[in-house]
């Protein structure tokens, strides 16, 4: 039976359990010590039985699926036809994978004749294990349901138990967040460590030459690759932390100042959402806009100025558009910070005969500075993690240059570049992407932690 069918059967059994338990429980209303006021409503008894029937079986099913595929593969490997498989691991795995695909029906013709024979073995083993799994889960469902049913009675505190289970469920849900973080860190670490076993971390972090090639075969020419990531780090900083910030900080800060200090409330009410719309535009649209309109204009401008090395994919184009995208991040944090400065401080300055701009420049901004700085750090973190704009408008050439009209590449672009096409997953080239991902993760994490700490300390000062 297909997993989906089994799933529905188990759900059905649960429903059956619910109905029967509830019916039984509604008879409790007038019995014994529970006369007139039973501890739990009948529905809770129903849920108790239903959950006991369905949950263990579903859990088993979830665990069985990967287990059974592993066991099936084991069985195939141990079977007689598999004895003729080549010893070379890559070929062997490829044939086994083909066999599996043939058996599952996702592939209709195979490259390798051996795969056909193995597919039959695979199918047989799969059927066997599937049957085992189905029977076991159904048994579990029945057993659980029966056990729970036997326990319900007038004095049974069904509601407490069900609620405890619900609370457990809530806890599990929250743990998913931690699991995800751990998952990210582990998977990045794991693959990066494999990478660092092929390429030294020193070369990666401090090397100046980025040309990632790996040999497909041992004797291939041009097999040496350089994995020095400094040009990538520089490209990321150049576009995200320098050019984009040169656009976003003045525009964002001055917009926030105008909105909080000068604009009438009616104007502010629609201007603020308008600015936030800038953050809602998908980055692929920004990237397309950058590639279509901005980059050619910059290229022409650069040519007009006679700057050498002007390319149609430039750091300036990507940086400008990224800066525009980041404006709402800066302005929103600055807005919040400026609003958090107590009105009394503003009144104190105005009462001395200072103009609005003097009050803002000399009193409000220094007072709001930690919040503003926090906002800028968060914006930088967002900018360096941005992918689509740079993929579409900056370039692929690892270039260590100060020329904004030239094409540079960034960490995120290279991650995308390294993982496209059919790669052998184990090659240094693909693993380099994970190493880059690890660096990106750590840097953005640090930036975020520092930014939030700065903002928090500042907010405490005013509360």
């Amino acid at each position: 039976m297909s997993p989906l069918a089994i799933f529905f059967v188990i759900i059905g059994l649960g429903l059956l359990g619910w109905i029967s338990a509830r019916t039984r429980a509604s008879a409790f209303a007038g019995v014994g010590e529970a006369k007139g006021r039973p501890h739990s409503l009948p529905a809770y008894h129903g849920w108790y039985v239903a959950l006991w029937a369905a949950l263990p079986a579903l859990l088993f099913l979830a665990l069985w699926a990967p287990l059974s595929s592993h066991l099936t593969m084991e069985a195939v490997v141990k079977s007689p036809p598999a004895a003729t498989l080549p010893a070379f691991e890559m070929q062997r795995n490829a044939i086994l994978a083909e066999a599996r695909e043939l058996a599952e029906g996702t592939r209709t013709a195979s490259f390798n004749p051996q795969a056909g024979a193995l597919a039959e073995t695979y199918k047989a083993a799969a059927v066997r294990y599937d049957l085992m799994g189905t029977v076991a889960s159904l048994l579990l469902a029945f057993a659980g349901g029966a056990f729970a049913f036997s326990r319900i009675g007038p004095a049974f505190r069904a509601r407490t138990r069900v609620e405890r289970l619900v609370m457990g469920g809530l806890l599990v849900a929250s743990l998913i967040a931690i699991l995800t973080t751990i998952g990210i860190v582990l998977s990045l670490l794991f693959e990066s460590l494999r990478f660092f076993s092929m390429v030294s971390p020193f070369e990666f972090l401090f090397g100046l030459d980025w040309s990632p090639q790996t040999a497909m075969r041992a004797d291939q020419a041009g097999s040496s690759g350089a994995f020095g990531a400094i040009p990538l780090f520089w490209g990321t900083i150049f576009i995200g932390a320098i050019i984009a910030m040169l656009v976003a900080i003045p525009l964002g800060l001055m917009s926030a100042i105008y909105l909080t200090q000068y604009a009438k409330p009616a104007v502010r009410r629609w201007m603020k959402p308008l600015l936030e719309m800038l953050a809602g535009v998908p980055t692929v649209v920004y990237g397309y806009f950058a590639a279509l309109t901005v980059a050619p204009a910059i290229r022409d401008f650069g040519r007009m100025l006679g700057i050498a090395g002007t390319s149609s994919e430039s750091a300036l184009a990507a940086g400008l558009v990224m800066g525009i995208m980041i404006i709402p991040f800066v302005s929103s944090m600055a807005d919040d910070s400026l609003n958090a400065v107590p009105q009394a401080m503003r009144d104190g300055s105005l009462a001395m005969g200072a103009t609005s701009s003097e009050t803002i420049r000399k009193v409000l901004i220094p007072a709001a500075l930690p919040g503003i700085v926090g906002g800028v750090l968060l914006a930088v973190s967002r900018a360096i993690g941005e992918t689509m704009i740079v993929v579409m408008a900056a370039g692929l050439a690892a270039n260590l240059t100060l020329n904004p009209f030239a094409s540079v590449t960034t960490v995120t672009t290279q991650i995308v570049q390294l993982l496209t096409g059919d790669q052998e997953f184990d090659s240094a080239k693909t693993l380099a992407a994970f190493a880059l991902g690890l660096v990106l993760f750590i840097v953005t994490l640090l930036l975020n932690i520092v930014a939030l700490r700065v903002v928090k300390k500042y907010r405490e000062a005013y509360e």
Partner: protein
Amino acid sequence: MADDMILSEAVRHERPDPVETERKMSAVGVSVWYGEKKAIDQVSIDVGRENVTAFIGPSGCGKSTFLRTLNRMNDTIPNARVAGRIELDGEDIYGPDMDVVQLRARVGMVFQKPNPFPKSIYENVAYGPRIHGLAAARADLDEIVERSLQRAGLWEEVRDRLQESGTALSGGQQQRLCIARAIAVDPEVILMDEPCSALDPIATAKIEELIHELRGRYAIVIVTHNMQQAARVSQRTAFFHLGELIEYGETSEIFTNPKVERTKDYITGRYG
């Protein structure tokens, strides 16, 4: 009974000097609206040149609102509207010729809750003279800061720690710092909006002493909800109620022999 108590309080301090009736500021027929709500109704009053004038009345009666019209701080409130005429040395402060920035340097304000800037003590006091260009050189600025802090009675306590943050001082010290800050721009009038309500009794006493010392130099208007304080520090008192000026006269008169029934009821504690 209550009358005697108040009078004896007033007598305990030195008897106030004969008041000068020369007008520093005068208001004629002033009304203030917040949106549709009328907060002040046709108030006319004079502020003497070398006097301390007290505004008293129950909370919410408009004393602070009226005080804020005297230095045009109501301009910062979006839907506030002021009608009537207010003059400083004979000039209409709402007129086109009067510059609000200058006005606020001439008419300083101390707020209810001390609001020093999150800067050093020195910078707090130096801020005003800096923006108005009152000091040509650093030495002049130093002198202004020292003089202001001395006049505010704070110099001895902070002379060794001028670079420390103004917010690190105690409540009473912070309020004196705010007074020093207001003094530093050399105003002619100082408005005080319940300056002691956030302070403990000892700090309050210090501030009242300070008001006494400042009296000759600046015209002072103090809003207070504490009648005894008004009796202690002021020469003239105005009683506000529900946005109207009920009675205005010599402090001793108001507290011993009020002419209006409502004033008498308030003074004797019948309400408010």
